[in-house]
């Protein structure tokens, strides 16, 4: 039996085990083997309307498009954004998100005569770039401001970029098809060649 088979067996053995919670604040869900758990985005979001979902998907696709590798849509990023908006953002952040969605849904058609998702791609990009220009004073853009949980007062466009990029590069598609990923390297070599088009490894070293 090799190591991967061993881990799979361990995962099957442990999944569904219940453990006494008395005195401790562990969730029941935690007592499952995470590697064997459903993907985070496997759950069904119910926060946005169908037309709002389309807007979010178009924005995510503009931020991380399909190129010679898959993009945000294939990685399930729109679903990630909706789940995070519902379950993870705090009230202040959710208020900014909701207002941003409402702006895209109502103000943009008033100004351009068509819903955002029906505009042509250069127009859509121009709108997002204008939003980014307007947001450029936000501390979200400060050099090195990445080692934190979230910037609570960040404008909608920054929220969309952060959730899209994070959702993409932590997704199975992004990690396994865009980055260099080997979950079981078996050895360490600190002096391998790096080509000009090579991707990075998904993990920081610790």
């Amino acid at each position, binding site marked *: 039996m090799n190591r991967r088979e061993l881990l799979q067996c361990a995962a099957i053995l442990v999944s569904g085990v219940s453990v006494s919670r008395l*005195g401790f604040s562990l969730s029941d869900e935690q007592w499952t083997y995470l590697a064997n758990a459903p993907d985070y985005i496997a759950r069904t979001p119910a926060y946005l309307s169908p037309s709002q979902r389309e807007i979010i998907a178009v924005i995510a696709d*503009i931020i991380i498009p399909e190129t010679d590798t898959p993009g945000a849509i294939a990685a399930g990023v729109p679903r990630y954004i909706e789940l995070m908006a519902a379950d993870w953002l705090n009230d202040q952040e959710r208020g900014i998100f909701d207002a941003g969605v409402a702006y895209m849904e109502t103000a943009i058609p008033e100004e351009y005569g068509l819903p955002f998702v029906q505009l042509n791609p250069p127009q859509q*990009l121009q709108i997002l770039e204008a939003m980014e220009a307007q947001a450029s004073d936000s501390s979200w853009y400060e050099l090195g401001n990445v080692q934190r949980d979230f910037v609570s007062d960040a404008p909608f466009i920054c929220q969309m970029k952060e959730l899209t990029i994070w959702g993409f590069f932590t997704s199975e598609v992004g990690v396994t098809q865009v980055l260099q990923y080997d979950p079981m*390297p078996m050895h360490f070599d*600190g002096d391998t060649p790096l080509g000009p088009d090579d991707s*990075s490894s998904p993990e920081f070293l610790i």
Partner: protein
Amino acid sequence: MATGTDPMIAAQHIDFDAIVIGSGITGGWAAKELTEKGLRVLVLDRGKNIRHGTDYLGEHAPDWKAPFQDKPDRELFAREYPLQSKNYAFSEFNRQFWNNDRDNPYISNPEKPFEWFRADAVGGRSLLWGRQSYRWSEQDFKSNSDDGNGIPWPIGYTDLAPWYSHVEKFAGISGQAEGWPELPDSEFLPPMNSFALERTIKQRLAKKAPDLRMTIGRSAVLTRDHNGRSACHYCGPCHRGCSTGSYFSSQSATLPAARATGNLTLKSDAVVERLIYDEQSGKITAVQVIDANSGERHSYSARLFFLCASTVATTQLLLNSGSDKFPNGLANHSGALGQHLMDHLESTPVVGIFLDDMDRYYFGNRPNGSYIPRFRNLPGQDADSEFLRGYGFQANVLRANWKMAYNQKGFGADLKDALRKPGFWIWALTGFGECLPRPSNRIALDHSKLDRFGIPQVSIEFDWSDNEQAMWKDMNQQSARIMKAAGAVFYQGMGDTNTAIGGGAIHEMGTARMGNDPAQSVLNAHNQAHDVANLFVTDGSCMTSSSCVNPSLTYMALTARACDYASKQLAAGAI
């Protein structure tokens, strides 16, 4: 005072030769050594029962399986883990190992704050530790007597050297033998490989800062199969638990060895409330234990008692085990118990950016850095320095990736391409400095505030002395010199003002110190309480000074040495 026959305590008279309280680094070693000497041992841990391998729930789990794809659960962490979640190793992938802060409060003076990072699982912090393993030097054991701070150590390097070897051969320490007196070599497994950048920096330092030495981190991570445990597979985050046992923990190494003797009984969820002292015999006769789940009380009797519960918890237990004979805490005729709390002065990271070796990369995730050992105030040098003792730098290499630049402007294919490719190299230095033992840094009980078991909470006060303030400034200057010599194109310094909080290095120690003088110390040269012959304390609380190197290896060696002594004393009828 209560004895083992208190009718309020459920009668459950199970006799053991020895009881070990705590199953972390030192408790695991005490269990192994004592059971292998033929003693029947009960190990008690307040934490939940984590099973090696099968309960490492986050091991090898990719980000896309984690709640929120590993964005932290802010609401939960703030409510249940406001302190523990500050630690770099804390995440949803290993939350089951950590202490719940809300359920287990302690008191920290806001003017003199102290952070108590705590595990809550069998195996304790040995599941979570950084695995860096360094011997103390001869000089380290002499520092107190040389400069008059604290009291002299009752032992020296030669007393401990064979026990370092003993624990290293079992645990497995990878590293490079160097022959440096300030950092004695261990019994090494082969060293881990280096990054190209580390070799570049090492060559530059040899030319531009020849007083410095740099070596691969000495780590309790296996570089080849060892004692039935597998060589590291370089997946990266050790602190999620390692089912191949590639890093040393009680779970992977010492507890299985103890179990194999047939002499081990291990009870999880067992909160030790107090030790029962018998005035007639002058010994501990039993421990009083509360079941963390049911709240039921039991007592267990034994002939020998090892306290390995971690510095703060061991001190709390001794303070809470007072009696008519020991009104200020068990084995505390000296009054030293609870005083002289130390931690290491851990700097903020000094982060340097390097554009060397940009066409080189790495394969695998090395769970180890490199080390620049103490180079200040070594014997015969730096007589003009403005501080006593010294510090070392731990150095880590990172290659920037999307996580360091996701807040940039732009959209589309160019942004995606920029994010997927590696950025510059980073080499980060973190200083760890020796802290002086001072009576004002102390742990006490607050009888007005009880925890959920009715045990008085500990109240901790800690601040840095002028010596550590001066040491910080020196670290700041020297780290800048090192970054320049190493060839950083830019570096972010640690600043001139000490921002460290006591406990932050998680190297707390010193509150039941060893010493030859029973009027000034709690423990003798064999970690035996001066006042109580069958009581031994071998966790960090026994430390008389703090050195600047990571302490766990020294705790292991002291524990094995104390177990040898105690079992011989027991056999000779002296205990």
